[in-house]
């Protein structure tokens, strides 16, 4: 089984203590437990797509993540939940070093993603293997085609036929092809919000990453568009490892195999999603879940 993080300390709680744990949440079928080979060599057949060991991150002097440790099995969906400001985005952005952009960020501990040590890996190589989808759809102000082809051109692919084939394939996988096949040369900004977000997913799929990070990918979308993104996530996990930040616990329950609960920069609990939502082992988790649902 997964090694449980040994660094969970009780944070001072500001949340009002709730009493009866309400359990109205229907959970997805429990996922098959990932086969983990303890002591396996790090490169060949890494059992975990992501492994985080005693990882801390500071914005200047402010600790945003404190001694985090957990693993993400390959081909699974892991949801990160927690109140606003608890460090969900920071944790996600640690996986592809997007925090590098912020001055004064310092990290401790180890993060391995897709077989790479995040801190020492070539950042371009790392980001090629780890795609990211942001909270607000952020297509470039370019054509639909050029958006999806962006990453491919970065890889040096110039051949028009190959570009076209891979753009089509990516749009198909992102369930957007049928809606845009006739207007690939139109501006991506003319698409609806939900289409834009699927375009961003297609753009990230085009370079064939191993891991996809999603930071509240549906929070700016209407319910229908949200449902399509959720379907897509469930579909994509067959080929990719997905980590999705969400503040929506129902969403976490619907789409994830495992859920991590983060509070004040600490990983309070990570478990199979059905178990975390129905019988959390920590009082803090239960308070958070019931506080939201109750």
């Amino acid at each position: 089984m997964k090694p449980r993080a040994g660094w969970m300390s009780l944070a001072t709680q500001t949340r009002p203590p709730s009493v009866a744990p309400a359990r109205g949440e229907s959970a997805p079928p429990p996922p098959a437990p990932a086969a983990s080979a303890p002591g396996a060599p790090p490169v060949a057949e890494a059992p975990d797509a992501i492994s985080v060991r005693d990882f801390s991150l500071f914005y200047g002097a402010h600790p945003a993540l404190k001694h985090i440790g957990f693993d993400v099995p390959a081909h699974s969906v892991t949801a990160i939940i927690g109140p606003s400001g608890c460090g969900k985005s920071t944790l996600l952005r640690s996986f592809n070093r997007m925090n590098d952009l912020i001055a004064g960020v310092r990290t401790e501990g180890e993060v391995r993603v897709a077989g790479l040590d995040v801190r020492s890996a070539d950042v371009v190589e790392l980001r090629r293997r780890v795609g990211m989808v942001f909270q607000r759809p952020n297509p470039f102000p370019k054509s639909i085609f050029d958006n999806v082809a962006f990453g491919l051109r970065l890889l040096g692919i110039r051949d028009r036929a190959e570009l076209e084939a891979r753009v089509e394939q990516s749009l198909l996988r992102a369930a957007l092809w049928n809606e845009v096949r006739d207007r690939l040369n139109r501006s991506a900004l003319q698409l609806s919000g939900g289409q834009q977000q699927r375009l961003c997913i297609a753009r990230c799929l085009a370079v064939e990453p191993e891991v996809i990070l999603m930071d509240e990918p549906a929070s700016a979308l209407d319910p229908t568009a949200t449902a399509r993104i959720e379907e897509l996530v469930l579909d994509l996990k067959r080929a990719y490892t997905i980590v999705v930040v969400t503040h929506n616990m129902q969403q976490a329950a619907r789409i994830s195999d495992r859920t991590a609960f983060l509070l004040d920069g600490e990983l309070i609990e990570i478990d199979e999603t059905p178990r975390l939502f129905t019988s959390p082992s920590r009082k803090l988790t239960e308070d958070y879940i019931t506080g939201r649902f109750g």
Partner: protein
Amino acid sequence: MSPAPRDRLAALPRGGPGLARRAWNALVLAGCGAGLALVLLPMIMLVAHIVARGLPGLSLAFFVSMPKPVGEPGGGMANAIVGTMILVGACGLIAVRVGGGTGLYLAEYGRGPFAGAVRYAAELLAGVPSIVVGVAAYGLVVLTIGHFSAIAGAIALAILMLPTIVRSTEEVVRLVPRSYREAALALGAPRWRVVQSVVLPAASAGIVTASMLALARAAGETAPLLLTALGNRFWSVALDQPIASLPVMIFDYARAPYSDWNQQAWTGALVLLLLVTAVSAMLRLAVRRIG
């Protein structure tokens, strides 16, 4: 230090605005109106005057014929119109490259003391009178080459345009949404590639707008051209030769003691005004189409 918000709240008058407040309001409004009139009136008078004085001399011949020698009636400013276009085009090429590059540098990498120095230099340059820039270009270019030339004029005008272009490029590049950069970086794009393929295309409309505004101003500069491009009564489009330009021609013709030349100066002023207005209008259309 400003007072704490609570104190400021307490200082607010209770109930509706009092008499004093309303009187003050009216006064300020009147002041604004007067200011508006002060700005608009001279502009309207100026334009009306130029149109009234320039229109009688306006004809096709003015655009297509060369200046005539003193005493001969007729003639136009074809060489000066083309000369101004060449000067403005050349200085635009120089200024947009240098100024755009500098602005981009400041926006993307401009943190350290060197960037601060560059920014300060651009600010200082904005305050340098155009005649001084003309003298500098005279010393640097004209004396080096050995004679007046179009390229010296273009360089002088480009230096004048630089501060505007540097500053506005920096601003529009900074305005490019962070989300575009993040998207590109998250795809593994190196920094230079993000700038080249995402930031610059997104900022280009703004850079073009700013450059055109600066160009419109440069098109009317006279003093630096007197010391650099000089002027030319004959047809010349060579960059290494003195070249005619509308502002200098207007200057010469307006000072001349011949009434037909004075008339042509007015018409030249009108044409210059039309040129600049036409460019601005086209620019607005183009930007609206891009935006």
